[in-house]
């Protein structure tokens, strides 16, 4: 873990809800219940800018629900969360609570889905082009006037081809997205989200169903993203992947943050081993 970004983190306490040096996202008192079940119940959580943060936790811990809440796809019973667009600028912050999903995405916080949402009857390339933000031709005023958007379209096209190349999807460029395999759809969804040049990208199990060889290159992509300045927040179950690339790990269980820390902090934390008790992951953690 020599390439971990310990500089950004400084000496942050590995305790639940700890204060980060330069958070990009702060979550406060967010609660979401389904009937009697408190799926998410978070007092305070900060996500550090410029690093890879992993959300881990057993099935049903509330990881996806938390993603849904902070991206506006679900409404919490209560709570606020704030996006800090600029590094070390406590002043330029946006209260995201109550905003609609597209508004949140347009602030620079873009997500992918655990169950992939590829646009089946559109080509892989069209899927990609859709991802780009602030397209002139997307407004009805300009749509009929090709000259108003042709140039931007060409720029977007080059970016899309570039990303498809990096994600090994170039050969599928003109195929319908429906023809992709499950793993390829995961890749497409991630590449598509990157088209908008997000400041913070939220990936819900990006490696699930992707073959091990591709997982390797996916991990490299995620690390490259971080090195290009994108903050990454991802949910995963694959412990090798998590330990391999995360700079910081947040552990959720029964809707609450039970631990945070660097991979080595977390793997030594008895509370984490407890949460996973009896599962193979508990064994894996002990080996780390």
């Amino acid at each position, binding site marked *: 873990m020599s390439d971990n970004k310990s500089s950004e983190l400084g000496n942050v306490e590995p305790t639940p809800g700890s204060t980060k040096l330069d958070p990009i996202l702060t979550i406060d008192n967010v609660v979401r219940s389904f009937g009697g079940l408190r799926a998410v119940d978070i007092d305070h959580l900060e996500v550090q800018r410029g690093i890879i943060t992993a959300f881990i936790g057993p099935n049903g811990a509330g990881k996806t629900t938390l993603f849904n809440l902070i991206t506006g796809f679900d409404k919490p019973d209560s709570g606020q969360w704030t996006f800090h667009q600029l590094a070390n600028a406590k002043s330029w912050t946006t209260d995201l609570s109550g905003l609609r999903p597209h508004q949140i995405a347009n602030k620079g916080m873009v997500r992918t889905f655990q169950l992939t949402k590829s646009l*089946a009857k559109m080509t892989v390339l069209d899927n990609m082009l859709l991802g780009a933000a602030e397209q002139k031709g997307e407004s009805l005023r300009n*749509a009929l006037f090709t000259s108003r958007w042709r140039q931007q379209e060409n720029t977007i096209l080059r970016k899309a081809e570039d990303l498809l190349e990096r994600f090994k999807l170039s050969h599928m460029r003109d195929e319908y997205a429906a023809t992709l395999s499950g793993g390829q759809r995961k890749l497409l969804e991630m590449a598509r989200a990157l088209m908008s040049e997000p400041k913070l990208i939220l990936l819900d199990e990006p490696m699930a169903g992707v073959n091990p060889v591709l997982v390797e290159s996916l991990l490299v992509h995620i690390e490259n993203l971080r090195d290009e300045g994108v903050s990454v927040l991802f949910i995963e179950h694959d412990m090798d992947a998590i330990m391999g690339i995360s700079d910081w790990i947040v552990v959720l269980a029964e809707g609450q943050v039970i631990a945070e820390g660097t991979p080595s902090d977390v793997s030594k934390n008895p509370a984490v081993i407890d949460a996973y008790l009896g599962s193979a992951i508990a064994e894996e953690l002990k080996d780390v």
Partner: protein
Amino acid sequence: MLMNLFAEIDVSKLFGLALRTSIGVQAATFALAAVGLNLHYGYTGLLNFGVVAFMAAGAYGMAIFFTQGWLGGSILLAIASGLAFAVIIALSIGLPSLRLRADYLALTTIAIAEVLRISFRSQRLLDLTGGPFGLPSIEDRNANVSFADVITVDWNPIGKGNYGAWFLEFDEKTLWVMIIGWSLVSLASLLIWGLMRSPWGRVIKAIREDEDAARALGKNVFSYKLQSLIIGGVIASLAGIVRAFDMGFVETQQFRPQTTFFIWTVLILGGAASIWGPIIGSMTFWFVIIFSEELLRQMVDSGWIPEAILKSNDIASVRMILMGIMLATLMIWRPQGLVGKKEEAQIDVR
């Protein structure tokens, strides 16, 4: 027996009548309405089961404005108010239901279409809409005065007379409305083609495929759906207006729910999400309807089908059964419609 049949059938009349209808005003108006529905359903995935509400809004909006003589009763302003009425209908369907699940929109469209038709019919609105008698009033109609006169007589560039030959002979009024109708079909198709090749169209198609994916990428899905509903609705309302000019009057009988289902048939038959689908669909629809109707009529009249099995009065309903069978067969054999994209139809929704 079979030889006997061929001897009795007037093949020229059979094809002549069918062809006449397939290029006529009715086919043009159905094609136009289907172009609007194609934007709603074919491209945006909106289940609009109230297409006829937009046609009624256009026709009545125009007719009321004109017969009331508002702002000097200008026909162009009357047409504009028909279109404006369609926008209001789109907003009143869209604003409450477009944020909800797709089935709510479907229900709202059916409801609004019926509410509109029944209100136009009501005695309370007699002075405005002519109630069950429609517009223009009975007196005006007896005196042969109609809002259509400005368009079909005063502004008709075609000299009085009959044009064409065989069964394809039309008088100057019909011919002029046909030209207007098919020109509007072309313009509307061109508009949709232009829109769908733009990034705007890409967002529209993405919404059809998966709304949440579009939202996650920062697209204001609600606003796009509303735009689609308005544009498609205005196109469908033009269909209502053209039909009103053709018939010379409007009445609620023209706007029963079955018209909506005919337009759906036209779209599915031709192929949803294709530019030519509505046009080919409408022409084929009317060709098949008239062809089978005429064939049955000739068979009944010649005694080849005994009265005991089918009376001439029942032909109209039997042709609809035939239409249904044909549509069902087509869906099995060509689910994409006559000119839709085969590959798209084969993609199952997962």
